[in-house]
């Protein structure tokens, strides 16, 4: 995955240096260029690929060049740096919002989550979400209502292995609850209704 290229547009040198310091700690994001004026950034936009413009909320609202750019640059997405307590119409679409009053840990978490989500959306094909045969077997047992230790005994594996498989199943399917997994198993014919009824 290539880095997400973020341009910063904000007129305070000190804040920009601080952001640079924090963004340097985030894998997958590259903060550059750092501009203090729109005209400066505009020149660079033609020459360099930029994914996101991180802009302070004051400039975003007041600079008409910026609002024009928001409407006319189709490939660029936007993020907001809150420097002032002002409202932005909720119809505008932002990738993320950060505030100059956020603490470091919060910022880092937020940005890391952002990068993770982006990476997930762009780079993964569906095949890696398919269950392995072993995982299907485990899923069948979970859906039938067996506990981890029962599954371990039945399939001659350790409980620890069962837990690892279950974690992988949940992360592949995005289904967290046992009822959800049971419905999934029924929908995909890993088990049938008679198996479930037998249990009751």
């Amino acid at each position, binding site marked *: 995955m290539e880095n997400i290229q973020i341009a910063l547009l904000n007129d305070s040198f000190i804040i920009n240096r601080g952001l640079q310091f924090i963004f340097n700690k985030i894998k997958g994001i590259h903060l550059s260029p750092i501009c203090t004026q729109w005209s400066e950034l505009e020149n660079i936009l033609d020459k360099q690929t930029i994914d996101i413009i991180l802009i302070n909320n004051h400039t975003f609202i007041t600079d008409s060049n910026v609002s024009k750019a928001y409407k006319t640059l189709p490939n660029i997405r936007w993020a907001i740096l809150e420097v002032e307590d002002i409202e932005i119409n*909720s119809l505008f679409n932002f990738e993320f919002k950060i505030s100059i009053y956020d603490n470091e840990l919060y910022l880092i978490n937020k940005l890391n989550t952002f990068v993770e989500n982006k990476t997930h959306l762009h780079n993964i094909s569906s095949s890696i979400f398919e269950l392995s045969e072993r995982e299907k077997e485990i899923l069948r047992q979970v859906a039938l209502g067996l506990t981890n230790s029962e599954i371990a005994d039945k399939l001659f594996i350790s409980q620890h292995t069962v837990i690892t498989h279950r974690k992988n199943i949940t992360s592949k399917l995005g289904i967290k*609850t046992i*009822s959800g997994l049971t*419905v999934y198993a029924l929908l995909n014919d890993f088990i049938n209704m008679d198996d479930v009824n037998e249990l009751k």
Partner: protein
Amino acid sequence: MMIRSNIKMADVIIQNHHLLAIINRFGIKLGFGEQTVAEVCSSYNIPVEFFLEIVNAFNDPDFFPKKNMYSFPLSLIIDYLFKAHDYYINVKVPEIKGLIEKVTKTKDIKTQKAVLLIQAFFNEYADQLKKHIKREEEKVYPYILELENVFDSKEQNKINEFKSKYNFRIDDYAIEHEDIEEKLYDIKNLIIKYISPKDNYIIYFKILGQLAHLEEDINDHSEMENKVLIPRVRIMEKAIYN
């Protein structure tokens, strides 16, 4: 956007119509003309700061929680939570059940089989939600209200009486929420991924919309419990039991 006391109530609803459910919990009816949030709140006798905390928390997930949430009496918060419960059980759940019932009538056997499974899952979820709510309303909330009373009174004999009456602490209950939220998420997920309807598309959209709406509302609800209600109860418990 941050909702403030000096903007028009009508604009609040226009920018996020999901807030209709929230103002309904405060007993506020439509038809507020050009009145501001502050004016509407005062005509309904609602503390405007409290109202703002609630709607902003709902409107913007990053907003929560704010320090001044700590200054409101818990009875106010609990009253709000009660009304939210009523909305889940008596409005949302029946609405979703009705929609699911409609799609079970499809002629496509394969879809029908899938929908019946989802229906059973949703019914299981609804029963669990009801039980959970019943427990909160009958056990947890009365406990909290009495705790607040006793705590505010600062009278030792009341405190002693309280201690002998309950052998229950708030943390015994705090864990239980998660599973409920996860089930709702799973239902939505299963419908989106594994049901490919041959008819009634619009009803499926409605079901998903309603599920998402309920999920959002319940998440907000448990945020309020976990980030405001429970921490405050812990503080009072600590003061009383030490």
